[in-house]
């Protein structure tokens, strides 16, 4: 009797997990296993037959000049957005928390760009670059120049994401005890010194979080360059995700693209966890 009841209770426990388990299996686990299988073949993505070709895709990937181009663009974008978003968000958060008039209103205004979808963001900035830049400022649009296009796309991300990072910094700043800053002030420290030696070290966990987040977003960026320039002009703004997407859906090299996607997964996880580890270590030292 008790054995049967125990069994029933175990079954109900599992029923709680079951729907999540099924969806996870269908959308992530099974496709992931298939993905690993595809990565070691010469499949074009359309034909019924294809052969296992070992590590050919991997070696070809490292020799491909387009890989280097995609990696370079992705890195450039990631560095600009990760550094830019964090510096801007930190500076504006600290500014808004120093008893500014209407700070509450300003904080919600800073957050507003996040409600615009990527498509709308790209449309708005397309108009700013295409109409306002040449007519009102006499500057050509950065999106048609191969040297400035990544910078131009990164600007869209800075505009949309800074408010989001501010929310995290704001929460971190609220946790800095007012007494601590007060003590530094009484001891004769100026605002600049207080910020670097009292406030900033207390913000270290927030910095770790934000840097890691935007590092991940940057390395995985697809939507901004896809919608704004579709990787152009030429391949000047083709990021790694677009590179992978194009191999699947326009170049018909599914096996090759899948290998690229797996390498990307390893790179993203590797880079993000290495940076997180380094930042966490520094947190402790501070």
């Amino acid at each position: 009797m008790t054995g049967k009841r125990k069994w029933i209770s175990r079954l109900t426990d599992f029923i709680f997990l079951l729907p999540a388990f099924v969806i996870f299996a269908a959308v992530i686990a099974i496709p992931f296993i298939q993905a690993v299988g595809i990565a070691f073949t010469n499949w074009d993505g359309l034909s019924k037959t294809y052969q296992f070709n070992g590590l050919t895709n991997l070696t070809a990937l490292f020799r491909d000049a387009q890989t280097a181009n995609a990696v370079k663009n992705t890195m450039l974008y990631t560095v600009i957005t990760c550094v830019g978003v964090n510096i801007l968000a930190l500076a504006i958060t600290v500014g808004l928390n120093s008893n500014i008039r209407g700070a509450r209103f300003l904080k919600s205004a800073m957050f507003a760009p996040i409600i615009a979808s990527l498509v709308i963001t790209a449309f708005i900035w397309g108009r700013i670059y295409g109409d306002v830049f040449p007519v009102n400022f006499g500057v050509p649009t950065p999106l048609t120049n191969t040297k400035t296009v990544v910078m131009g796309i990164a600007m869209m991300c800075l505009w949309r994401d800074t408010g989001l990072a501010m929310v995290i910094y704001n929460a971190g700043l609220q946790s800095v005890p007012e007494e601590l800053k007060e003590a530094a002030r009484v001891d004769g420290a100026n605002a600049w010194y207080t910020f670097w030696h009292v406030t900033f070290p207390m913000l270290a966990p927030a910095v770790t979080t934000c840097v890691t987040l935007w590092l991940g977003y940057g390395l995985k960026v697809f939507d901004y360059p896809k919608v704004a320039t579709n990787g152009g002009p030429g391949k000047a703004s083709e990021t790694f995700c677009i590179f992978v997407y194009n191999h699947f859906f326009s170049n018909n090299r599914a096996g090759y693209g899948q290998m690229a996607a797996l390498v990307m997964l390893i790179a993203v996880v590797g880079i993000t966890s290495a940076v997180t580890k380094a930042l966490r270590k520094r947190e402790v030292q501070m």
Partner: protein
Amino acid sequence: MKKKRLRTVSGKAPLWLNIIMWMVVTLFVAPFYILIIYAFKPREATMLSNPLSLPDSLYLGNFTEAVEKSNFFLAFKNSLICTICGVAILVVVCSMAAYIIVRRQKSRFYAIWQYIFLAAVMLPFQTVMFPIYKDLVSLKMLNTLPAYILVSVGFQLGFDIFLYCGFIKTVPLELEEAALIDGCGRMRTFWKIVFPLLKPVTMTVVVLSALAIWNDYQMALVVISKPAVATLPLAQQSFIGQQISYLNLAAAACLLSIIPIFVMYLFLQKYIVKGVVAGAVKG
């Protein structure tokens, strides 16, 4: 009380800082100005010399024309269906999974699932994009809304379970224990007693998931590329592409699609902020 007193001691910010901060924030909000004035200008006015000039009058013709030409309500309906269904499924599925993961923490089987779902948050969509696409083709489910809802739910699942787990850990056991002793089954205990207590985190999950699904572009591009099932971001992208010389119409369509999410943002901002902060802890 103490905190408040200390704040006033540190005094008001100087005027120059006030001015700088207001200017910086204005700069961040300014791009919306372009969208709004373009949406209210007739076509000829968008091609005149100064793009930043205010429209002469509030011309509403763009909105009616954009709604007709872009099939706005169809895309709006699709977006609404996907967002509502996706969010409802996420709330039910994730709250249940997180509950059992937290309450059966001592069992190794359930503890491992917490890490598996957390790892799924890191997975780039690109890695499984093509197998998903191929599977949907062979199941004849490509370009259907249920398939899109399933895929969006799958990719939001890990994050929402993570949010629920964090909150459920803080819910005291006593209430449910009493119910269990009274002979109430685990399922009934969960829905009658625990779930109502989860309301704050449920709000956060609802808002963040809704925002993610409503604004999603990448997954929609792969799963639902046909106009009949396209959601707003997709429909807009192709509409903008067609109307490259009718910027006023494109702007009007964009502005219309922001409105529902803007209303949600006005009323639920508190939960968005809470959710972002809670989510950031995962770092």
